[in-house]
Structure formats: structure tokens, C-alpha cells
């Protein structure tokens, strides 16, 4: 991507730069800048938990008719730290049902996804319940991709009552939450009779 000189100057001004070194070609500067803008920090690690299970089915519909709990549309993208999409990632996602129970015998609320070249994923599920020995509602992720360090992490919800509406201040109430970054905003949609939640959770992998 190449910026016009005017765009570069405007953007430099935003960041407080008043001069541009004349010996650096503008296109190089723009390229470096573009890279810096896209750069992402790796998604923090968070415990695997004791109930990971191999060989989950490939499904985007984890919620079945009649399941209790608020429907949740969960999705996002898989990136590397340069901000490029990771086209050959594999995502394993698992969570409790609305009552806070993991399915150990079977594969309810467990899936394996291969997002493909666009590196985007989306699943329909429910808001997980509170597992009794954990403080917060959470969804587990294991993301693997050739050339990248496997990512084990968990997603948390800013609406979790544990945070008392202030996850910045209260995320330490769950000792397993390693970073505020893992707590994502929840968009509530629909009419009062059919409320659904939507959460975006992008994942950023480190190169090996």
C-alpha cells in the first residue's frame, strides 16, 4: 500500500512529526509505516484447563434447538504478529454449556475449525455458564498453524457479573486471567424476547 505525500504528512502530524528525512524515499517510509500499523501483539497464553479433548467434530453450530442459555455469535480472524492473516490455521474451541458443565463423554460445545485462506471463523453457541471451580465464564481456544507457535488461550466476557461492570479494575478477581486483553466486549442484539450476544475475538500467533 502506498500513501500520497499529503496523506503521509497528515499522518505524521498526528503523531507529532514535523519533518520528513529527505534521504528516505517516501514509498519506503510508507511501507515501513504500513507494517508498523498492522503489527499486532501475540494473543496472551491462558491455561489449557483439564478438559481439552482431541478429535472434536468440525461444526460451526454448537448450539442445538432447545439448549438453554443466551445465544452467542462468536467470531474473529487469525493473524500473525505482522498483521497478515494466517491462512492455514486450525482452531479448536471448547466451553461449558449454559449450566457450567463440560461434555467429557461426547463433544457438545466442542469444535475444530479450519478457517482457510480468509482466516476468519464464526460459530453459533451459547454464553458459557460458570464452572464451579472457576471464577469467570470463559471459552477455550487452541490454535495451531504451520510455522507458528501453538496458541493456548481463553476468551472472557466484559459482561461477566464477576467484573462488576469494570473489567479494567476487576479482571484480577479471576487469578487465571493473564491479561485484560482476553476480556472482550459483548454486543447485545435483538428484541427483548430474543436477545442474542455477539463477540469478536481475533487471535494473533507468534512465528516459531
Amino acid at each position, binding site marked *: 500500500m502506498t500513501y500520497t505525500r499529503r496523506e503521509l504528512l497528515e499522518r505524521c502530524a498526528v503523531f507529532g512529526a514535523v519533518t520528513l528525512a529527505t534521504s528516505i524515499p517516501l514509498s519506503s517510509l510508507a511501507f515501513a509505516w504500513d507494517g508498523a500499523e498492522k503489527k499486532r501483539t501475540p494473543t496472551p497464553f491462558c491455561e489449557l484447563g483439564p*478438559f481439552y479433548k482431541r478429535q472434536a467434530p468440525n461444526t460451526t453450530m454448537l448450539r442445538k434447538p432447545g439448549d438453554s442459555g443466551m445465544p452467542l455469535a462468536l467470531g474473529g480472524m487469525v493473524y500473525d504478529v505482522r498483521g497478515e492473516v494466517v491462512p492455514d490455521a486450525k482452531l479448536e474451541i471448547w466451553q461449558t454449556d449454559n449450566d*457450567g458443565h463440560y461434555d467429557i463423554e461426547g463433544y457438545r460445545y466442542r469444535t475444530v475449525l479450519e478457517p482457510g485462506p480468509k482466516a476468519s471463523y464464526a460459530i453459533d453457541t451459547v454464553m458459557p455458564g460458570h464452572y464451579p471451580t472457576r471464577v469467570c465464564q470463559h471459552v477455550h481456544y487452541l490454535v495451531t498453524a504451520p510455522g507458528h507457535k501453538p496458541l493456548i488461550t481463553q476468551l472472557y466476557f466484559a459482561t461477566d457479573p464477576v467484573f462488576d461492570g469494570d473489567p479494567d479494575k476487576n479482571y484480577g478477581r479471576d487469578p487465571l486471567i493473564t491479561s485484560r486483553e482476553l476480556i472482550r466486549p459483548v454486543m447485545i442484539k435483538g428484541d427483548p424476547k430474543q436477545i442474542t450476544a455477539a463477540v469478536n475475538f481475533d487471535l494473533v500467533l507468534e512465528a516459531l
Partner: protein
Amino acid sequence: MRAFRLAAVLVISAVTAAVASQPVAKVQLPCDSLYQMLSPTGKQAVVACKDHRSYLVSIPDGASRPLLPAEPRVSALVYSKDGQWLAAGFPDGTVRVMPGQGTAAARQWKAGPHRIDTLYLFPDGKKLFVAPVDSPGTVWELTETPTLLATLPVAFGGMDAVAVSPDGELLVAAGDDTVLRWYDTATWQKMREYNGFLLETFVLTFTPDGKYLLAGGADSRITVLDPASGQQVRQLPPEAGSSVADIDFLGGPQRTLTLYFDNSGEKPPHALFWDLATDKSTPLKADSRPTCSGIVTGKLWLCNSDSRTLTILQQE
């Protein structure tokens, strides 16, 4: 896996008392204690205090000395089989090996990049297995300056359990990736893998005669494996809704005490005696809630503590 490690401590803390018992010792505690850990010889106990300090208390005389300060908090703690050494792991990846008895110098070094979740002192007391969270396992020679002998990779995550054969020739490690890996301890080359589990393994132990390897975990049951071939021999009946947290042998190779935690987190932990000759189990009777347990010379010891007194009973 920190949550699970803590849960495992609670499991051990919550073994319920059998009916017939005889007193072993009653000692004063140096602090208001959360739980205790008996040494394999029964000659001392690590006392974990509510303020997060810990002490070593001699049994039966009750003499105590400080073991670890409140900070940094310990993330893993294990005795050597002979009770001579204690190894502690910390959140910054540091490991400390301390004399359980005597005045030998402690050794401390950075053994991993992350919190130490699993430690195992080899039966010969000369090597230490260290498993940091989300990292490969490592094996260290416990010389004056500990040296790295081997790095044992895992597909992802860390390692949950490890066992060394009684003859010391074989190490088997269980990874977060649900795979068991066999290593030759002379060369540290991987010999074989067992991929038969879909869920994680939390405990590995060899029978005292070394003929079998027992694995237990989130699949609710003990799986008996042939250490020589790496093949499954049989599985014991599952304990529905529970995960295997620990397996100890009572004396010979036939009888185990197996601890389970409830997968839903709603029921208290419980324990079963398994007879490996018949594959039948009997429950450890519920009576009270001890604060530590251990197998000492083939007998089950259980403790009860109030705020300042520890009572140890041997179960018949």
C-alpha cells in the same frame, strides 16, 4: 494447568477418613495451616500456612523450621522418594532443590521460561524433571550447578505427569496434547508414543515391580499399559463424572489408593481402593475431612488438623 494442580492439592486434602485407625503422632503446628504434605518416610511434613509461608515439621517430635517464605508463592512442590530432598517450583520458572533433612546446601536456578507446574525427583535422587506451563519438559542433573540433560518436546502446551520406571531406565511423560511419550534415560531418545487417549492424563505411575504403567486422567479410569511395548493392557471400570487425580500403591503391586475429583466441580473429591488382581474397587469410607494423606511403608496415613495441632492416624 495451575487450576488443576491446586485442585489436586485439594483432592489430597479432602481424602475421607477410613473407620479403623491408630494414632501415629500429634504435633504442634508453627502457624495457622491450610494443608500439609507428608514426606514419603513419614518423618516430616511440609506445613503450608494460611499466610503462604511454609515450614518443615519433624514427626513425631514436632520441631519445625522455616522452609519457604510467603513470596514468591510456590507453584509446585515434591519430595524425593527417600524423603531426603524437596523440590519447589515458582511462577517465574525458578526451581529450588532443598534438603528435607540435614544441612546440605540448597540449589536454585532458572529452569524454565514460565511458571513451573510439574516437578519429579528421580528415584535415585540425582535428577529432576521440570515441566513449566506451555513449554517442553526438561531433565536436570542435580550437580552442584545443575546441568540440563534433556529437553522433551510436546506438540502444544506443557506436561502434566511423568513417571520413571523402578529400574530408572525408562521415563514416560504425559503431555497436554494427550500423548504419552517413552524415553530411554540413557540416551534421552524417544522410544515410542501412546496416542490412545482423547483426554488429558493427570497421573502416571509404575507398579512397584515395574511390570505395568498406570495412567489416569480426565477419562475417569485407570488404564494399564505394558511399559515394554507401550500397548494398552486393559482399562479398569470408569468412575463416572470424575477424573483420576492421583494413584498410590499400598505396599505391593496389587492394591492402589486412587483419588478422584468431580468433573462438574460440584461434589467433594473421593477415593477408591482398587485391587488390580480382580479389578474391583472399594470406597474409602467417609468419616471426616483430613488435611493430608500419604502412603508410608505401605500403609495409609491421614492427618487432621485444627488451627495449631496436627494429628496423624495410620489406617488399618
